[in-house]
C-alpha cells in the first residue's frame, strides 16, 4: 500500500492542524484562520486519491500500530463511508473558507481548533472500523459541538449548549453501555469481528445492546423523541457550525446506526421499529418547522424532518430503500448546509433571525437569495433538483410491496412534503416579493461567505442536472449493504 492512499490521513492530518492551531495561537495568531482550509484541502486530495481505489476494490483498510484489525483499530473506507467522508471534507473545506469572513468574535483560535476537531470527529465516525473507536469519535464530535454551540455565550447559546451537553452525555453513557454489552458477549471490539462473533447471541440480547447503542446514536442523530436538543442547539450555534451540525453531524451518527444495524442487528423486527421512529421523526420535525418564526430554528426542525425521511427509507430494509436513503442523505447534507451558510450570511447583514425580517432580501442579496431558493427547492424535492430524484426513489422504494401500512406511510411522507413546501414557499416569497423595511441598506455577503456557498450551490446544481454518477454509486452502495459485502471484503483485505 506504499504510495497509495491512506484513509488514516483523513483524520491524522486535520488533527495535526488542530494542534498546529494551538501551537501558533500564542505567537502567530494571524495564520490560525487559514489552517483549517489547508487541513481540509489536504483531506480533499486524500479523498480524491481514495476514490478510484475504493470504487475499484470496494474498500480500503488502513491499520494502526502495525497490527492486523481485530488486534488494533483499523480505518475502513468503503463506498458508503467514502460518500460520507467526502461530504464531510467538502463541507469542512467550504465552511473553513466561510469562517474566514464569518467569525470575528474572540477567542478565534479556540473556535478554529474546535471547528477543525468537530469536522475531524465527524469524518472519524464514518471511517472507523472499531466500535469503541466509534465511541471516541462520537465524543470528540459531541464535545467539540458542545463548545461550539455555546460559542456566542449569550443566554440562548448557553442554555442550548447545556441541554445538549446533558442529553449528549446521557447518550454517550448509553452508547458505551451498549458497546460494553457487546464486548462482554464477544470479547472483541472490531466491527467485522463483532459481526461474526455476535451471531450466537439471541435476539433479545442483541436487541438490548442495540437499544442502548440506538439511544446514544439516536440522540446525536436527532431521532424523534431523542432530538429535543437539536432545535435549540442549531440556531444557537454560529451559522457555520450549524451547517456542519445539520449537514453532516446528525448524518454521521445516522451512518453509524446504519452500519451497526446492517452488520449486527439485521432483524426484520428491528427494522420495523425503526420505520416508526423514522415516520415520527419526519412528522414532528416538519410540523414543528411550519410554526417557527426564527429561520434557523425552522431549518433545524426541517433537519429533523429530513432525518426522519432518510431514516424511514433505510428502515425499509431493501436495496431501493438504502439507495433512496443515501441519495437523500447526500441531498440533505448539501442543501441544508447550503441553506445554513446562506442564511448565516444574511443574518450577518440584517442582524436578525426572524423570517419576517428577510422580506425584500431577494433584491438586495441576489446571489444569497438565489442559492437559498435552490437549496430550498432541492430540500422540497422539486424537479429538476437532486431532492426530486431522491424523493422519487424513496417513495418508489416504500411502495415496492404496497400494503396498507406502506401506503399510509407514503401518504404521510407526501403530506409532510406539502408542509415542507408550505414553510419554504412562505420563506421564499417573503424573501423575494415581500416588502422590505424602509431604507434597508445592505450589501451582498462578504467574499469568503459568498465563495463558499457559491461553490456548494454549484455542486448542488451539478448533481441535480447530472445525477447519474451518484445514482450509480448509491446503487452500488445499496447492493453492498444488502449483500453485507463490508464483512466479506474486510475479511479478504484485512486478513482478520
Amino acid at each position: 500500500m506504499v504510495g497509495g492512499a491512506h484513509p488514516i490521513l483523513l483524520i491524522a492530518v486535520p488533527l495535526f492542524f488542530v494542534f498546529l492551531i494551538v501551537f501558533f495561537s500564542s505567537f502567530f495568531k494571524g495564520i490560525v484562520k487559514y489552517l483549517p482550509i489547508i487541513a481540509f484541502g489536504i483531506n480533499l486530495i486524500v479523498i480524491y486519491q481514495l476514490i478510484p481505489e475504493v470504487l475499484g476494490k470496494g474498500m480500503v483498510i488502513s491499520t494502526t500500530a502495525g497490527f492486523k484489525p481485530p488486534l488494533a483499530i483499523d480505518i475502513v473506507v468503503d463506498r458508503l463511508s467514502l460518500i460520507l467522508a467526502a461530504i464531510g471534507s467538502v463541507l469542512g473545506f467550504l465552511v473553513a473558507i466561510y469562517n474566514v469572513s464569518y467569525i470575528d468574535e474572540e477567542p478565534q483560535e479556540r473556535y478554529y481548533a474546535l471547528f477543525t476537531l468537530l469536522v475531524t470527529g465527524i469524518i472519524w465516525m464514518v471511517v472507523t472500523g472499531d466500535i469503541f473507536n466509534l465511541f471516541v469519535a462520537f465524543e470528540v464530535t459531541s464535545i467539540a459541538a458542545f463548545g461550539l454551540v455555546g460559542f456566542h455565550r449569550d443566554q440562548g447559546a448557553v442554555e442550548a449548549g447545556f441541554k445538549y451537553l446533558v442529553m449528549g452525555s446521557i447518550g454517550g453513557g448509553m452508547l458505551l453501555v451498549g458497546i460494553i454489552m457487546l464486548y462482554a458477549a464477544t470479547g472483541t471490539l472490531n466491527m467485522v469481528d463483532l459481526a461474526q462473533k455476535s451471531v450466537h447471541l439471541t435476539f433479545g440480547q442483541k436487541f438490548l445492546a442495540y437499544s442502548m447503542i440506538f439511544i446514544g446514536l439516536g440522540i446525536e442523530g436527532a431521532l424523534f423523541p431523542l432530538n429535543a436538543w437539536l432545535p435549540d442547539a442549531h440556531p444557537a450555534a454560529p451559522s457555520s457550525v450549524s451547517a456542519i451540525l445539520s449537514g453532516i453531524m446528525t448524518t454521521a451518527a445516522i451512518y453509524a446506526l446504519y452500519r451497526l444495524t446492517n452488520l449486527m442487528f439485521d432483524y426484520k423486527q428491528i427494522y420495523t421499529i425503526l420505520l416508526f421512529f423514522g415516520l415520527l421523526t419526519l412528522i414532528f420535525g416538519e410540523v414543528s418547522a411550519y410554526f417557527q418564526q426564527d429561520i434557523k430554528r425552522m431549518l433545524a426542525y426541517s433537519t429533523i424532518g429530513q432525518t426522519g425521511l432518510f431514516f424511514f427509507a433505510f428502515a425499509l430494509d431493501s436495496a431501493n430503500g438504502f439507495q433512496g436513503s443515501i441519495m437523500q442523505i447526500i441531498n440533505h447534507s448539501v442543501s441544508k448546509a447550503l441553506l445554513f451558510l446562506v442564511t448565516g450570511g444574511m443574518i450577518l447583514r440584517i442582524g436578525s433571525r426572524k423570517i419576517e425580517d428577510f422580506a425584500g432580501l431577494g433584491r438586495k442579496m441576489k446571489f444569497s437569495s438565489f442559492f437559498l431558493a435552490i437549496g430550498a427547492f432541492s430540500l422540497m424535492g422539486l424537479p429538476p433538483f437532486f431532492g426530486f430524484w431522491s424523493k422519487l426513489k424513496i417513495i418508489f422504494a416504500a411502495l415496492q410491496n404496497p400494503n396498507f401500512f406502506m401506503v399510509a406511510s407514503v401518504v404521510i411522507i407526501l403530506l409532510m412534503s406539502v408542509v415542507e413546501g408550505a414553510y419554504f414557499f412562505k420563506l421564499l416569497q417573503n424573501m423575494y416579493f415581500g416588502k422590505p423595511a424602509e431604507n434597508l441598506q445592505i450589501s451582498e455577503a462578504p467574499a469568503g461567505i459568498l465563495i463558499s456557498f457559491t461553490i456548494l450551490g454549484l455542486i448542488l446544481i451539478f448533481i441535480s442536472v447530472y445525477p447519474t454518477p451518484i445514482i450509480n454509486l448509491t446503487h452500488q452502495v445499496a447492493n453492498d449493504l444488502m449483500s453485507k459485502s463490508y464483512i466479506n471484503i474486510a475479511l479478504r483485505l484485512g486478513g482478520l
Partner: protein
Amino acid sequence: MNASLELLLATPFIGGLLAFIGGKVHRWIRNLIAIIFSFATAFEIIGYYNVTIKGIVWGKLFGSDLILQTNPITWLFLFIVTSASFLIVLFSIDDMRKEEDELKLDAYYMYLLFVEGAMVGIVLAGDLITFFMFWEIMSWTSYFLIIHGGKRSMAAGYKYIIMSVIGAYAMFLAMAMLYAKAHSLVYTDVANVLLHSSPAFVIWTIVLLAIGFFVKAAVMPLHTWLPDAHSEAPSPVSPLLSGVLIKMGAYGLFVVLYGLISVKLAGSLMPSVFSTPLLLYIIQWLAALSIVLATFLAIMQEDAKRLLAYSSISQIGYVVLGIATGTSLGVAGGLFHALNHAIFKGLLFLVVGAVIYRTGTRNLSELGGLIKKMPFSFVALLLGIIALAGVPPLNGFVSKWMIYEALLQKKEVFLLIMAFVGSTGAFLYVYRLVHSIFLGQLPKKYENVKDVPILMQIPIWVLALLTIVLGIMPGLAMNVIVKGMAFFGFKPIAYNLFGFPQGTAMGALTTINISAGLAIAFVVAWILFILFPKSRKVSQYDNYAAGQVVTEDLKYNYSYGFYMSFSRVIKPILKWSIERVYNYWVEAAKIFGDYYMRRIYTGNLETYNAYIVIVITLAAAFVLLGGKIW
C-alpha cells in the same frame, strides 16, 4: 428527427436562461431573445404536424426509461402551448414595461419560457416520470410568475402552489403504486399492467391521478386557487394560466383515461350509468357542477379578471365534460373546446389586460364607455365573448355543439341541461363584461385613453382571427383531433372542412351555411337600419335622473351590482363555499399541530431526559416481555 424532439424540449429552457443572462446586458436583448426563442419553439412544431413518434429514450432512471413521444393529440396541445406562449411574450414586451425592477423582468421572461418548456415537456412525455417531473417544474415556475404582482398575488400564489403540490403528490402516489407493479412508468408498460390489475387498484390509480389533474384544471371542488391566482397574476400571465396551463390538467386526464386505460377496460371494471363507466360519470357530474356553479359565480363578480377566471372554471368544465363522455364525438368536442377556449379566453384576458394597461383598473364599476377610445379592443372583445358564449359562427359554437350532441346521444339529459344553463349564464356575464368596459358613459379620467401599442395588438388580432377561422372551418382542427384520437383507439368521426356532413349518426353541421346565413341576416339588418332610421340620435351624455339634470362629472352607469336581482336569487345556494371548508380544516390542523408541538418541545430538560429514559424503558420492557433472551 429523433434529436429534434429533445431540441424542441430544450429550446424554451435555453431561451429562458439566455433571456435571463441577456437581461444583464440590455433589456432589448432580453426581449429579443425571448421573442426569438418562443417563436423558434412555435416554429419547430410545424415539423411534427401529423407526425407520430412512438418514443425515444432520453434518459434512464431507476430502471425505467424516460421517453419522449409525439402524436397528433400531442401536436394539438403543443400548438396551444407554443403559439400561446409566443403571443404572450409579444404582449408582455409592452405590457410589462411599466415594471421598473429589471431583475424582476429578467426573471419574468425566464420563468415564462420555463413554463412553456415545462408544458412542452408534459405534452411530449412518454412516461409518467417525465410527465411528473415537468408537471412539478411547471407548478413552481408558474408560481413565480403569479406572485409577480404584489402582496395579494403572493397570497394567491401561495394558495396555488400548495394546492398544486397536494395535487402533484396525489399523482405521485399513484405513480409510485404503478411503479411497484410495472417497474417501469412508460405509458405502454403502465397500460399493460393496468389491463391485468384488480378493479380497486385501477380505480385508485385513476382517482389519485385525477385529483392531480383536477387541481390543475380547476375542476370543482378543487378549483379554489384559480380565481385568486388568475386575477392577481400579471395581465400577460393570466391568459397563459387560463388558456394553456389549466389545459394540461385536461391533457393529463385524456392521456390517463384513454392512453393508460381504455373506456372498454373501465367499463369492464365498474358498473355503467348511461353507458358510461361510473367513474367517468362522476367526473362528468363534477365537470357539469363546475360549469353551472362557476357560471353563477362569474355573473356576480365585480372584477373583470375574476369574472374571466370563474368563466375559465366553467369552460374547462366543458372540456372535462366532453373528454369524460368516452364517445368519439364527445372527446373530440372536449379536445376541440380546449383549443377554442385557449384561443378565446386568451383573447379575452389579453383585451382586459390591454384595458388595464391603459386605465390601470380592472374594477368593472369604474370602467365604461371605452368603445370610442379603444375601438380595436372592443371589436376583439366582442369576437371573444361571442366565441365564449358559443354563438355561431365563431369557434366556441362548434365545440359546444359537439359536446351537446355527444350528451344527447348518450341521453344524459341532466348533464345536457346543466351545460345549457352554463352556456346561457355565459351570455349574462359576457354581456356584463362588454357593457361595463366599453359601453355606457366614459368616466372623465379616461378621456385621454387610446388603443394599446401595436405590439400588444398583434396577439389580440391573431387570436381574434383564429376564433373566426376555426369557427367557419372547424375541419382544420378536426383534422388533427380525429387523427390523434385514432391513435388512442377511437373510431373516427366523419368531418369536412366546414363541419360535419349530413347522414352520419351525429347529425349535420355546416358552419359555412350558418355563417353565410348570419352574414346575410346581418347585412339585411344593417341595410334596414340605414334605410329606415326611426330613432333619434342622442348624445351619450344627454340623460337625466328622476327629474334632476345629471352634470358632466356625474356618470350614470349601471355598472355596479349589475345582476343584483339575480344574485339575490342564487346567493343562498352559493353560501356554502368549498373554500371555507378547506380553510376550516387547514386552521384546525394548524391548531392541532401547534398544540402538540408545544407539548413535546417544552423547553424543560427533565421532559427531554424523560423521553430518553422512556425509550430505553420501552426497549427493556420489550425484551423482558417477549424478547426471549433466556
